[in-house]
């Protein structure tokens, strides 16, 4: 004879299995329903390619990336761990290339109290999926992203946390006419916002690079500058600005794997959800590890 607790466990298990099957089926759709005709000599379907079709916007502080940032204008550090996993890339015989993948990122902001003590102020988590397309100088990406933000335990006694969870659609177009210049612009809409606020945002920016030059031990360096602007309808209207000026260091001239060292300047409201209504103006030094 099963008691109520047993039935409860079975219901939880059924719910978990249903959710999990949904995730797997969703992720497998591209593979299962990919037309076999795509597997021709002229067309290629690549599973987990080396490099995503749509290159990360390195100037956007909320792109998935791995980095450590020391805020020089206040005693704080940030850690970024992010991954973009392109699951499928389709290169048809004619027309643009297509990519489909997922992305996840976590961002943590720490105070520095000396003596090796770095208590947590806030952590934000991103999880999303995207489709991308590229042809010639133009590439486009459509993302669906879930964001949640969590107050750090350092502030439990002084700040009341609130539930910050959102899902957005964002479409971004990028134009790279030459190797030294990239321009991008996009528009986004938060389909769900907690706390409720105005949902539209516009995003634009640029990346500028010097020509590669010989660096240490046969490696290559490039100077770079990025400017990233977000115009948000939320919090009464905000313009978030992020600037980077730094050095990109690669093993080979055209390698996508790189270490970047940059001076950062951010102005606008905080990118961290728990403080999204607060002004944040700061300088920083960052080291980035591009996969």
């Amino acid at each position, binding site marked *: 004879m099963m008691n109520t607790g047993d039935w409860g466990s079975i219901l*939880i298990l059924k719910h*978990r299995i249903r959710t999990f099957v949904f995730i797997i089926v969703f992720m497998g759709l591209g593979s299962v329903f990919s037309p076999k005709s795509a597997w021709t000599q002229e067309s290629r379907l690549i599973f987990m390619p080396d490099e995503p079709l749509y290159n990360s916007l390195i100037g956007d502080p909320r792109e998935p990336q791995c980095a450590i940032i020391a805020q020089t204008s206040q005693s704080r550090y940030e850690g970024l761990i992010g*991954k973009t996993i392109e699951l499928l890339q389709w290169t048809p015989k004619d027309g643009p290339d297509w990519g489909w993948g997922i992305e996840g990122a976590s961002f943590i902001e720490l105070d520095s109290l000396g003596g090796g003590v770095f208590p947590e102020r806030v952590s934000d*988590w991103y999880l999303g999926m995207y489709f991308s397309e590229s042809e010639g100088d133009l590439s486009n990406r459509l993302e669906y992203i879930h964001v949640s933000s*969590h107050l*750090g335990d350092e502030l439990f006694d002084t700040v009341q946390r609130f539930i910050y969870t959102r899902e957005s659609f964002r479409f971004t177009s990028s134009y790279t006419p030459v190797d030294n210049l990239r321009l991008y612009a996009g528009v986004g809409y938060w389909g769900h916002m907690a706390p409720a606020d105005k949902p539209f945002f516009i995003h634009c920016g640029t990346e500028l690079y010097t020509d590669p030059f010989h660096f240490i031990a046969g490696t290559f360096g490039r100077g770079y500058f990025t400017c990233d602007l977000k115009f948000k309808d939320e919090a009464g209207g905000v313009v978030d600005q992020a600037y980077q000026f730094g050095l990109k260091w690669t093993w080979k001239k055209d390698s996508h794997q790189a270490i970047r060292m940059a001076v950062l300047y951010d102005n606008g409201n905080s990118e961290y959800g728990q403080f999204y209504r607060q002004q944040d103006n700061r300088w920083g030094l960052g080291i980035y590890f591009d*996969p």
Partner: protein
Amino acid sequence: MLFHNLVGDLREPQTGLVAYTTQNRYEGEVGATVELLRYLPSNGFQWAWGIFGEGFILLDEYGATFPMRDGDWYAGMYVSEKSGDFSHRLEFEHESSHLGDSLQGLQTPTFFSRENLNFTSSWQPNDALRLHVGIGYWENMAPSGGPLFLSWGGEVYSPSTDILDGPLRGFSTLHFDWKQEYSDVLYVTWEAGVQWKFKKGETRDVRVALIYYDGNSEFGQFASTHDEHWGLGVYFDP
């Protein structure tokens, strides 16, 4: 990477999502390893040096809301070596753990911050089997405790069959940890699932696994609390 991740160790840098089947909980993890340098001398010994970072989040589930219980962060550096069937890795690892904000006012956060040195040896005689053993020492522990820890385990793989031109194979892992700070607890992780690669020899894959875990919680804020659960996980290995 010269020293491949121990896929059966839940605290290796990996990217995945785990749904607990026995509790209303989810785990998310984002991890990355960046191998900065590799040295390939002519004597057959290969060397590598790199860094890693990972974030783990534990979420409750109440309907459509997923309040956070805990977030753990790891960052470190390693030197690895490989020759023949053997590979070794020496890591320096920092770990911090933070109580989730859904427990604000309900539970007092513990200051949890640690650094350890650990050494792991792995033996992989063929594609179907890998065994590993490791030892580590927390050189700084807050809260304090016995600093020594040991780990051992194995990975077993079935022969593969091609699905959409990519090899699909079954796998099972068993991973044990013993920690001096909770010396009467044996931490056990068992996984069984399938691994799919786009082509043979490729390191990148997608794994789907059934997971069983028994021991104290891997999340630092609950390190002294017993945790036994089953889960379903999907992982994206780089």
